[in-house]
Structure formats: C-alpha cells, structure tokens
C-alpha cells in the first residue's frame, strides 16, 4: 500500500553489478504460465531487493513478455521498487488510527534524525524511510515496522532511539 513512493535517488546505482544467474530458477518456474508478471517481479525483488533493469530485460526476453508491460505493472503497484533501498526499511504507518494519533510526528522525527526525506535512503544505505498505509495494528497506534519487528505506541523520540540502536548494533557487528 503506498502513501509515498520510494523516490528515485539522484544517482541510482544502476551500474552496481548483479548476478543474473540468480533469477534462472524463477524464470524456469513461471515460463509459459499465464498471469505470471506479478509473481515474477515479486520473486525478482525478493532476490535483489529491488528490480534492476538488466534482470527485467532478461525476464522479458526469456518469458516472452513485453518489457513495457512489466514496467507498467512494476510502476502500478506500491510493492515494487526500481531503485536499491537501504538494508533496513523503516515503515511508518499512516493508517487512519495512526494518523489521528499523530503519525506525522514519528515521520518528522525520523526525517530529522536520519537526515533524509520520506521515501529516501540514507547515504550509508542502512535505512530507507517509507510511509505506509495501515500495518493492521491499529490498537497499538502509532506504529512502525522495521524488518519483521513491529513497534507500537510510539513517540517521535522513541522511534529515533529504536533506529539509533539499530545503527549502533550494525556498527558493532562490522
């Protein structure tokens, strides 16, 4: 569900080399099946974290799908990303329940702390900040989700602290 799409970074690293062999099993699975574009794109994004153009071209060629059709589907649905994203995607819920309990304050606090705008990725590619519509945990509003972990009943300060702790943990593991 989209509220704000992940915006295109000025210098998207299209040139980052990717291993196209990774998607061969995926192509074998869906080759010749009808209605396969969405699962193909979902599978591709699962592998690379986003939809790299060379991968889309390979899928189009091997599965005999028009690249334009794939692009049309990829840009229609909120789930698909055409650019690389950070290691951790910080999803701030902006559903109705969160909105009336000031989800904007969470996003603003994170924007300030991370130094990026909604939809952008930090320079170290650690965090991408994203607004989403409803994570379905309305009773815990306002809510954010990082990875599989959901954090509820937040304030701006708490959200910032959670993200800072993840950054510290990342530094220590390096």
């Amino acid at each position, binding site marked *: 569900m989209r509220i704000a799409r992940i915006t295109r970074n000025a210098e998207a690293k299209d040139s980052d080399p990717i291993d196209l062999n990774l998607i061969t099993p995926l192509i074998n699975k869906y080759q010749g099946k009808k*209605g396969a574009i969405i699962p193909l794109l979902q599978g591709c994004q699962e592998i690379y974290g986003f939809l790299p153009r060379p991968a889309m071209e390979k899928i189009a060629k091997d599965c005999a799908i028009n690249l334009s059709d794939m692009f049309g589907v990829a840009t229609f649905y909120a789930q698909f990303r055409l650019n690389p994203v950070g290691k951790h995607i910080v999803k701030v819920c902006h559903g*109705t329940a969160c909105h009336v*309990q000031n989800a904007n304050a969470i996003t603003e606090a994170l924007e300030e702390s991370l130094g990026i705008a909604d939809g952008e990725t930090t320079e170290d590619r650690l965090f991408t900040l994203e607004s989403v*519509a409803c994570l*379905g945990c*309305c009773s*815990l509003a306002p809510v954010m989700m990082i990875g599989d972990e959901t*954090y509820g009943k937040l304030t701006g300060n708490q959200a910032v602290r959670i993200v800072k702790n993840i950054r510290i943990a990342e530094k220590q593991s390096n």
Partner: protein
Amino acid sequence: MENTKVIVGLGSCGIAAGANKVYDKIAALKQADNLSFELKKTSCVGMCYREPLVEIQDDTGTYLYGEVDEDKIIEIIEKHINQHDPVKDFIVHTDLFKTIDNEYVDNQVKIALRNCGYIDPENIAEYEANHGYGAMFKIRDEKITQEQVIQNVLDSGLRGRGGGGFPTGMKWKFAYNSKSDEKYIICNADEGDPGAFMDRSLLEGDPHAVLEGMTIGAYAIGAHQGVIYCRAEYPLAIKRLQIAIDQAREKGYLGKNACGIEGFNFDMYIKEGAGAFVCGEETALMASIEGKRGMPRKRPPFPAVSGLWKKPTNINNVETWANIPWILLHGPEAYAQYGTEKSKGTKVFALAGKIKRSGLVEVPMGMTIRDVIFKLGGGIKDNKKFKAVQLGGPSGGCVPEYLADTIIDYDSVNATGAIMGSGGMVVMDESTCMVDVAKFFLDFTRKESCGKCTFCRIGTKRMLEILERITEGKGEEGDIERLEELAHQIKDSSLCGLGQTAPNPVLTTIKYFRHEYEAHIRDKKCPALVCKKLITYEVNPEKCTGCTVCAKNCPTNAISGERKEIHLIDKELCIQCGMCYTKCKFEAIKLS
C-alpha cells in the same frame, strides 16, 4: 494440572506487543520446573488493547490474563498453576466473576469470529473439533443440492461484508445460472482500508472457516478453482492460509472429489497482492490476478457472467466467506434471528482511534453506534469529548456525535452519508480536526486512484489542493462550494467504487462540521489545534524552567531567553514547525 491449558494469543498485534516473548518464557518455565500443563497457541481474541493475552483453562474455569509480560507471567504461573490461586489483578475476563472487560466480551455475538482466539489456527484438528467442515459433510450426507445451498444463503439474508452490501445469495445465483465448463471462486482479502484489520484477524485466527466457506460457494455455483487474493502486507495471514490449504488438501477436503462429494473437484491457491487499494474493486482484482495493472473495467459484463480469464466468477470478501459454514450448519433462520429487517446477522468491526478499548468486535446488526463505542469500546480515551466516528474508510464518512444513536445496518448508515464499509470504525475526539481528516483520506484516494477516469485522477488532486490551502490558512470564500461541486462531479463521472466514493469523507465532514471549515477559512483558526500553520506557540511562564532546550532546537532562532529564565517566542520569526512543543520536557509550550 494435567487438564490445565495455557493458551497464548499470537496474532499480529499480539506478537507486536510481545506475545512471542511471553510464549517462550512460559515454555522455559514449563521445562525448567517440569510442569505438566498443556501450552497452546491461538490467534487474536479481539482484545487488542490488552495484548499480550494469555488464557488459562483449568478444572475451575477459564481465565483470561491481559497485558502480560515476562515478569507478570512468572507470577501468574507460580500462583495460578502451582498454587491454584488465580491472580485476580491481572484477569481481564472470566465467566466466574465480574471483571473490567466483561462488557466488551458479553455484548458480542460471535459467528464469523466463532473460532478466533479459541483454536490453534495452524491445526486443522482443532477446527474439525469445532464443527469444522461439518457444513460440507452435511451437504454430502444429506445430499443437499446446489440450488438448496443457494436458497439457504438467500434465506439467511447475508449481504456482502466487504462494504457493498449486495445479497450474497443473489450473487451466487447469477454465477450458478451462467453456463460454463470452468468457473472461479475468489476470496477478496485485499483489505486496503487504512484503519481496518478484520480480515487480517480472521485469516490469522480461523483460516479454515474461509476455506470451507469458499468450498461451499464453489459447490453451489459449480466452480473448479478458487483464488484467495491477499495483501502481501499480511505475511502471517498468508503463512497460515497456506498451512490450512495444505492440510485441507491432505485431508481430501480440497482436490478431486473434494470432501468426499463425487464429481466435485475443487482446489485453490493464494495470490499475493502487490499493494494497490483499487484492487479491492472486483474487476481490478481480477485484472491483478491475471498479472495486469489492477485497473477496473466497465460492468456489465458482471463477473458472474465474464470474470477471471473471462469465465463466470464469484467474489466475496473474507468475512462473508467465514459466515457461510455457520449458516449452512445452523440454518438460515438461526442467522436471520440477529439483525434488522434488511440487514441480517452480525458484523465485525475494527475499533480504533481515540477509544479506550480498541480491538475487534462482532455485534448483531441493529446495535447503535453509541453502544458499540461506549458499551464495548469503553468510551473515549483520557475521558475526552466524543466528536465523531469514521465508518467505511476512504469510501466512507464521518458520523457526528449527535447521530451516534444511528443503528448499524446498511440502510441506516448510508442515510448519514457514510457507508457500512468493511468494518473500520475509527473514533475521533475533540482533538481531531475534521478538515485534516478529510484531507488525509483524500490524499489517500488521490494516490490510490488508478488514473483511468479523468475526474478521479485530476478531480481528487484539485480537491486535495483546496484542502491543503484551507489547512495552511490560505482558504478563500467559496472554497467549500468548490469542494462540493468537484465532489459531485467526481461521484457522477467515475467508473468504479473508488472514484464514486472518494469524495464521501469531504462531503460528510462539510455536512456535519461546516463550522470547522469556516473557522479555518474565515478566522484562520484550527479549533482542534491540529493544523500546524494555524497554531500559535507560546511559552507558559508557569511551567517554563529556562532549560534552553527549545531555544537550542528552534530552526529559526525565534526563541530567546537566558538559562533559568522564562523564554519567549518571537511570533514574527516562528514558522510553526512545532519543534519546541515536541522537545519541551515540561509541557511549557502552549498551543492556541
């Protein structure tokens, strides 16, 4: 102690509140002390405001413990299990004595949610033990015909729970009457309405009920294939659905001669949605299953005639499907005993927002909105003043306090300008700005518009621009009328439900809260103190300690004052960013 069961609620919100940690702790305690009770998992009980929840069933009765954490559970296990002395302070519900949450539980009638929070959703045997697949066996054993099944559903008066409210039996009849070698059954689980989580809880809590409902539907219309279209944002629901499908297949409830009915071949699979609100519209949903952009098309032909892959198709939403097995098993009269003349049965609502007890409730149709909010929901948080309730999400509207005695049925709710919708009920208090709420929903529909119809694509954008201006203090005389005009044009000229209903939040807020719009436009004031550009910030001299935090954080250096002296905000320099308000630890920044 052998008969004692300890059951932990592991729905999405329970897990978010820490239920997994509690479960692990219980497992560790059980192992460490070699305790012999049975530790089990279930899903959402609906009392989301008390998560994590742990239920203990023993020889004396059933006890539900709320807001359990790793420390509390040690005490509960020690006292309740080892000393047979229930910890009354933590019990939120029991049949044995009155507790704080009795009203929440006792005013509900659970049909769709009959098993949610009671059975382990990942274990088919528990569903079977609660009459699971019993409706299908009844059809098989009593040789109930397709027509009779449809007649049962017609007689029950069940109407589509996704929001449309179209009689389910009629829909089935149309699909049944379409002759084709292939037909499809679809479950719409693309719950995109922000602020609603009924379908998620149902799928997580009782996936087999949905599967059985779909199987009954497939039998009735003669379908061979089922598809569950579920939001990808609900990973736990998808996981449990897949487990359920695999188990049902293994048991022979799906597949060739499904449920032992000769010649009835039916199977199903899950299709993950990719995040587009418009895919809740049935023709868009089918386009999405076919792998295309999820854009609605013109009807007719209706899906019952030409749907998925151009074959006759019947689509119902999760809650509708979950009701079906119960209706077949207990008879249409049993279902129709609840509700009003034109809206039978029960409805599940997701209570959220500024309400004390937010969670999932199932109530008989005909209850008043006020009863749901005050009797079940416990009233407004922090005892603030109840202002309005939003029903139906982006397609619905705000019902003001003075209409709260409206009863819940399709026609009564429609009469207020809101819609029943899928069951989102977001409660708003005096600190909610209705113009801001209208802007919020319009921003949502504007982004979710698929772009096919001009009025929906551009009209919503123009309306949003006007609302943005109003909330920024740049509103002009005539803006309200301009909004109304655009709203009616969008309603009249859009192809699908998304566009036709998108202006509802604006129209209802104008209808019931026109004075708030006027305050924004004429007086440049936001009465609820929400719209930032219309708020002025002041230092409350009684509370200011002179800690200088606000001054340090002010991006325009609009705050002056020495350490330990009362600070002052220069209104000329202030850009209403609200930073001082957020940073002040002493609540010394006043809004007006």
